């Protein structure tokens, strides 16, 4: 056990949790705090550089503020806001640290917190008044419809208000962590295309990578997180959804169904496949099931590569998939041109899926899943039909994946077997392992972190490092292909998480203890001597 401070902190958290009440204050709240406010800080201050690394960026970057400082109250206040936000990010860690040492959290911290919150609100209002109403400070250039969403400074402030509110209302946040998280994430989520309307690539990333992978991870989380079945061929259902979309909305077979029908069709077809695969195999022991699904996950793209029944277009796949064009009385929305509509549709679907899955998690079905993954034998002896309950998880997981697949096909307009290789299954698995197996909030955070790193940062790191290389006269920096590191990132994420923090960044408490100290579970089939 490495005795780094952080390592010890995490371990302490891991060993102890049964001692506390299962409901109420949990450590996850702190993670919501830290990650939530860190995300906002990141969006406001750092993301503009990532989105467009040159100074013309999206509107005004913090750098512009720095270069014009110290010209007035506005700039000064923005600085203070930045510092305040840092404090907010760090303070939950401090609190965690105190807890880990079993010391009482000092009262003063609470007061400081409230002070910061009040200060943030007040100064945001002041900056707003100065610039918007009085037009005193020329901090943000000419103000038009998009200025607010364009400016990194404004983003910081919006983020600050959200975070500070959550922060000041800590009691409420602790009691309703999920609601708090939603309140934090939703506005940011909905406004994202406005903030980045000058960077359509980023919106495409948000729809095609973040949105799709969030859906996929949510679906896999049902199988792995809720029901405790490891599915290593999850990309197969994704492929089925995507190919359903490709076949039925492209010139390939001259069928053109609308996307809204296809997402349901994709979900239905995928869940059918899930049920067919699951029915005979679900009684297998966990690791055997994992390998069976892995085999299935290899067969499906192979079928597509070999152009089975001349349906799939072989290695090249299916191209020119339709992108919806919606005619409204007052406007025509072409999804192919206005990608933000994809983003919003995916976001809507993600939200609906989250709500439905949460319902399921807290219903009799969710309870049966937990019972099943904790003790299959006892669950069977308590009247739970183990096979059909597992099958349900499998089918629901598959259907979410199929739905994501249909969307994916429409967004990228071309599907080919390579898009559904094992590494896709592993990336989805990495997301839920990183975020927190069995915890929807964790899964969302995980998919944000991982898709940002893999599908955004790594893609553009070349450019950035080339620019950096030019400025500091090391041209070889421009020759590194960072996307090669994808595999290593997945690998390291999986290994480190399983070894150090098996519950993920935002653990579902029960799942975390199960993964660390839960003894060997025996499957019903093994007890019955038939597998």
């Amino acid at each position, binding site marked *: 056990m490495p005795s780094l401070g952080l390592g010890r902190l995490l371990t302490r958290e891991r060993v102890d949790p049964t001692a506390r009440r299962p409901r109420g204050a949990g450590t996850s709240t702190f993670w919501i705090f830290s990650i939530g406010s860190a995300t906002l800080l990141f969006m406001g201050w750092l993301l503009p550089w990532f989105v467009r690394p040159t100074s013309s960026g999206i509107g005004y970057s913090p750098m512009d503020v720095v270069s014009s400082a110290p010209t007035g109250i506005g700039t000064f206040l923005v600085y203070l806001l930045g510092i305040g936000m840092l404090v907010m990010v760090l303070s939950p860690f401090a609190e965690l640290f105190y807890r880990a040492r079993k010391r009482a959290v000092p009262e003063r911290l609470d007061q400081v917190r409230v002070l910061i919150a009040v200060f943030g609100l007040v100064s945001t209002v002041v900056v707003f008044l100065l610039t918007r109403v009085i037009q005193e400070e020329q901090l943000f250039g000419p103000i038009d419809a998009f200025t607010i969403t364009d400016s990194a400074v404004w983003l910081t402030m919006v983020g600050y208000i959200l975070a500070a509110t959550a922060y000041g209302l800590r009691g409420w946040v602790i009691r309703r962590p999920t609601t708090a998280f939603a309140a934090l994430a939703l506005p940011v989520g909905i406004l994202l295309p406005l903030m980045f309307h000058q960077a359509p690539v980023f919106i495409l990333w948000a729809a095609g990578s973040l949105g799709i992978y969030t859906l996929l991870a949510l679906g896999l989380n049902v199988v792995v997180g809720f029901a405790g079945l490891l599915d290593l061929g999850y990309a197969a259902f994704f492929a089925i959804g995507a190919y359903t979309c490709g076949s039925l909305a492209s010139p390939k077979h001259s069928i053109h169904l609308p996307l809204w029908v296809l997402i349901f069709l994709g979900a239905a077809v995928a869940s059918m496949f899930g049920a067919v695969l699951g029915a005979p195999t679900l009684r297998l022991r966990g690791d055997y099931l994992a390998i069976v699904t892995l085999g299935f996950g290899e067969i499906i793209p192979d079928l597509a590569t070999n152009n089975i029944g001349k349906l799939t277009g072989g290695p090249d796949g299916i191209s020119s998939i339709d992108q919806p064009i919606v005619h409204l009385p007052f406007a025509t929305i072409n999804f192919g041109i206005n990608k933000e509509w994809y983003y919003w549709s995916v976001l809507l679907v993600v939200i609906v899926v989250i709500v439905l899955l949460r319902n399921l998690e807290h*219903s*009799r079905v969710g309870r*049966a899943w937990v*019972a099943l993954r904790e003790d299959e*034998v006892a*669950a069977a002896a*308590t*009247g739970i039909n183990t096979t059909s309950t597992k099958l349900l998880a499998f089918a629901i997981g598959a259907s979410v994946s199929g739905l994501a697949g249909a969307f994916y096909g429409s967004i990228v307009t071309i599907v080919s077997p390579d898009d559904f290789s094992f590494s896709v299954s592993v990336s989805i698995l990495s997301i839920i392992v990183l975020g927190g197996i069995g915890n929807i909030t964790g899964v969302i955070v995980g998919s944000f972190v991982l898709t940002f790193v893999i599908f955004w940062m790594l893609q553009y790191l070349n450019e950035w490092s080339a620019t950096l290389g030019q400025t500091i006269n090391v041209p070889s920096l421009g020759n590194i292909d960072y996307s090669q590191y994808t595999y290593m990132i997945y690998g390291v994420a999986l290994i480190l998480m399983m070894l150090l923090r098996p519950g993920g960044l935002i653990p579902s408490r029960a799942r975390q203890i199960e993964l660390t100290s839960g003894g060997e579970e025996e499957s019903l089939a093994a007890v019955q001597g*038939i597998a």
Partner: protein
Amino acid sequence: MALIEVESMVKRFGGLMAVNDVSFVIDTREIVSMIGPNGAGKTTAFNCVTGLYPMTSGAVRFDGHIITGQPPHRITRLGIARTFQNIRLFSFMTALDNVMVGAHWWMSARVWDSVVKSPRARADEKRVEARARDLLEQLGLTRYAGSYARELPYGLQRRLEIARALATQPRVLLLDEPAAGLNPQEKKELMALISRLRDEGLTIFLIEHDMRVVMEISDRIVVLDHGVKITEGKPAEVRSNPQVIEAYLGQGAAERMVDA
């Protein structure tokens, strides 16, 4: 009226005859105990009745119907609930949730109801939660409703397992060594509980090593040794049966009595 009929049950593990041609009958609202030295095959017999082990040969009838070969969950749904010798609660579910799992199979909300949280699902959930809380209360577990099962003291875990079994709406309750690890006070409470369950209409079939408990509450006793049924009868008969004394009581009766 015979509720459970076991007809020449045989269970073989490789070369070991864990249960060898055992037959017995349990009547409705009867308390029947199964005793025998360690490794006699009692738990194995339980597992065969509840469908956890497929039997090598023989048959089990429940309420006149053959249930041999049915999957465990079907047998539970027919009305045979059980507890386990080595407690098998769902450790990281709350006590309340554990009991509600017991009610899972007879809840009326379909999957679709659960997905959209329909009024039906809500009502169902509320009804079952009320029933589960009621069970917890009557078993003195109210205080622990929100605790993880594995945080409960040992004796209460045994009781929680009974509560979970009761939530399945059983007709027969199979208890595998329910008194193991309980202190004398808890044992008394357990005996009272068993009598009460019988009074409320349940049939009880239990495995127990504690002779005091067995002799006091049983209507009849089945004695197993090395997988074979040696004898069966009223407590007084079994107590004086020389075969039993030789096979079982002779081996460590003194300690067991002190135990009790």
